[in-house]
């Protein structure tokens, strides 16, 4: 049934991937934002310092002896050196003619007024940022337009930007790493109830059909509700089929015993050997059927009782002794001696009816498969790992190669061909012991089989 399940995708993976994608987009946006902001700020810083330089030069421009004169202030250029180690260029024009400075600087852009303007161009193989501003001076009554430009290369700015970009990248990466961690944790904890439910259901024993009771999150309520309803229906239909089997077995057994009686009466009357053989065959078939019906009934009873196991103190020795006494006469018919030895007073918690049924099936086998005139040993003892009942016989043992198969339902050994049986005896014994937390151990020892009923330590 399992293994055929078609798994498609994983909620956890999908959740993580989606969260990570979101985080990546956010981180990228963050980095972009930071670098853009940094670029703007760096540009504005450079612009404002360039303009400060331009203004400081413009302010020293005067008219002396009928000519435009300028006294370049030291700070005008040194202040540029304070911000970055960039190359600095400047030029002062009076009515278009170069007064001083780097005459070959690119011309100031259009529309440069008193408030100045900025431009980014190339000069001497380097990208420069240039600030320019104009002012009118009156020389002997005629207005002269002076233009001051100060420019700076952008290496320092580029270096700073690269630094900020690195920092931004690191922040983005850190952000992403953190988000990734959170995503995994979220996915993990979000799916914990689901995992818990799956764990709780899969940890259950095969017979545990109780509904799920633990608190579950709202989203899982429908699923768990359906699961519980499903379990309920399953329980109901299971118990119905058990009931049905018991009923059927019971109904078959009664008419069978009538048929057997009639067959035996007929056998006594019939003389011809072929008719007697046919009747004997018939009686045997009836025995098989009624044994099967009886064992089926027992099995149904065992299944029912193990579902609602009632535990009480059971004295194993007493139980074994009663059973040996009860089966003693049957054994004596075939000169089989049953010896019981008790070591201490082992007591287990369990259902006496079930344990008795299990031991009876094992003893029944020992008697049934033993030849005439031999012995069966029952040992009841208390070991370190729990109490145990060991039944040894001299019946030749299990067929070695079928040992593992014997406690399966309807499994019969090759040595059982002559013997009436249904193949359910060891199944019943095994199910009883497993319901008590113990186990059934089969082995061959000496001249016969050794079957041990192990109970768990209390």
């Amino acid at each position, binding site marked *: 049934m399992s293994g055929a399940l078609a798994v498609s995708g994983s909620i956890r993976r999908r959740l993580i991937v989606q969260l990570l994608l979101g985080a990546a987009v956010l981180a990228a946006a963050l980095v972009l934002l930071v670098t853009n902001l940094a670029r703007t700020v760096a540009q504005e810083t450079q612009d404002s310092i360039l303009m400060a330089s331009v203004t400081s030069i413009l302010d020293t421009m005067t008219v002396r002896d009928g000519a435009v*004169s300028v006294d370049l202030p030291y700070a005008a*250029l*040194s202040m540029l*050196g304070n911000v970055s*180690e960039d*190359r*600095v*260029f400047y030029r002062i024009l009076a009515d278009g003619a170069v007064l*001083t400075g780097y005459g070959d600087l690119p011309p100031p852009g259009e529309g440069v007024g008193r408030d100045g303007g900025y431009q980014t161009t190339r000069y001497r193989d380097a990208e420069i940022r240039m600030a320019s501003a104009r002012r009118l001076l009156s020389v002997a009554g005629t207005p002269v337009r002076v233009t001051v430009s100060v420019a700076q290369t952008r*290496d320092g700015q580029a270096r700073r930007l690269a630094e900020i970009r690195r920092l931004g990248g690191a922040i983005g990466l850190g952000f992403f790493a953190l988000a990734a961690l959170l995503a995994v944790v979220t996915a993990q904890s979000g799916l914990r109830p689901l995992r818990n439910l799956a764990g709780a259901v899969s940890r259950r024993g095969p017979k545990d059909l109780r509904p799920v009771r633990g608190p579950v999150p709202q989203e899982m309520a429908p699923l768990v509700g359906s699961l519980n309803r499903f379990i309920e229906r399953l329980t109901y239909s299971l118990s119905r089929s058990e009931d049905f089997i018991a009923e059927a077995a019971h109904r078959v057994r009664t008419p069978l015993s009538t048929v057997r009686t009639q067959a035996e009466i007929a056998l006594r009357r019939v003389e011809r050997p072929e008719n007697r053989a046919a009747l004997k065959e018939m009686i045997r078939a009836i025995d098989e059927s009624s044994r099967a019906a009886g064992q089926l009934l027992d099995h149904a009873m065992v299944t029912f009782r193990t579902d609602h196991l009632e535990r009480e103190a059971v004295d194993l020795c007493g139980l074994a002794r009663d059973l040996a006494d009860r089966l003693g006469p049957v054994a004596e018919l075939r000169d089989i001696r049953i010896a019981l030895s008790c070591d201490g007073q082992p007591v287990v918690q369990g259902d006496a009816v079930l344990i008795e049924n299990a031991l009876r099936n094992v003893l029944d086998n020992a008697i049934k498969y033993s030849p005439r005139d031999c012995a069966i040993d029952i040992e009841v003892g208390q070991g370190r790992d729990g109490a145990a009942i060991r039944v040894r016989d001299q019946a030749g043992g299990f067929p070695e190669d079928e040992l593992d198969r014997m406690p399966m339902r309807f499994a019969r050994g090759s040595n059982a061909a002559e013997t009436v049986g249904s193949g359910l005896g060891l199944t019943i014994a095994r199910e009883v012991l497993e319901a008590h937390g113990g186990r059934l151990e089969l082995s061959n020892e000496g001249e016969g089989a050794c079957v041990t009923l192990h109970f768990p330590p209390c």
Partner: protein
Amino acid sequence: MRHLAFSALLSGALSVLAVAVAAFEIENHIVVGPEDAPRRLQVISTADADLFAPLLQVFADRQGDLRIDYTVASSTELMRAVTGGAPFDVALSSAMDLQTKLANDGHTRPHRSAATALVPARARWRDHLFAFSQEPAALVISPAAFQGLEVPRTRLDLIRLLRDHEDRFRGRVGTYDVAQSGLGYLFATQDVRASESYWRLTEVMGSLETRLYCCSGDMIEDVSTGRIALAYNVLGSYAAARTDLGDRIEIVEFQDYTTLMLRTAAILRDARNPDAAAAFVDHLIRAAWGAGEMEEYPFPRLPEQGEAVSAALRPIRLGPGLLVHLDALKRQGFLSEWRDAMRR
């Protein structure tokens, strides 16, 4: 000792490419290392060859197969040589402003190594300029001429002294001709930035018929012979190196402030042998800033690495600020003011 040389001549017959030649004046030229070595390093410098030769020798010995051509020129001629495309690998100069301009205008190439990390941040610029010495601008006096007078410790002391003893010092004061000497101009412009007293001192010196010099060496020479009594803004390292003069000169570092010039090295953009150039710059840096003291290092090592030792020491800051005084208009204005004060 002055030669007129052409850059093409310097690079020798090997250089077929040096077509565009720029004429510039050199003061000296020495060769260190094996004459016929396979590799060559062309160094142009403002530092005296005698002073520098031992340090060059150490480098040549370590390299083994390298010939160093060491050409001495004034800082302005050095500038002309480099901007004119003369085939040098490394430029060493005391004119920090001109070196800064070289780096700013793209005539140098960047260099980064384990050694460059030794240089404190204030002593390098843009991975292009690396300082390898810190030398004070000092007052050099002749103790003989100062008999009975107290040695001035600040510029105000000096102004007072000169005013009080005009007759004694007339014609016996020396300083740089800032129009002629790049280093003198650098010192003067730094003085102007540092204190108000510079213009007053210049006026006083002007009134005393101060003699003007091209170079520190000449000033030191004249002080030692007693021709002048004192020289202002002399390169202290050169004076200190003249141990042969004994107590005929005395070096005074002013306590109000002492300008520290940083001699810088730059690898030129068109260097033919950039690897050797980088190794050479690293060699200079290690000599200046490295852990072990090198006997051949010709400049005084400041006792403490990194920051200036005393509050009075004012190292000139590398950076674009140095470009201001190179501005043609600015220079013109400064020189005319200086001439006014000097009465020239």
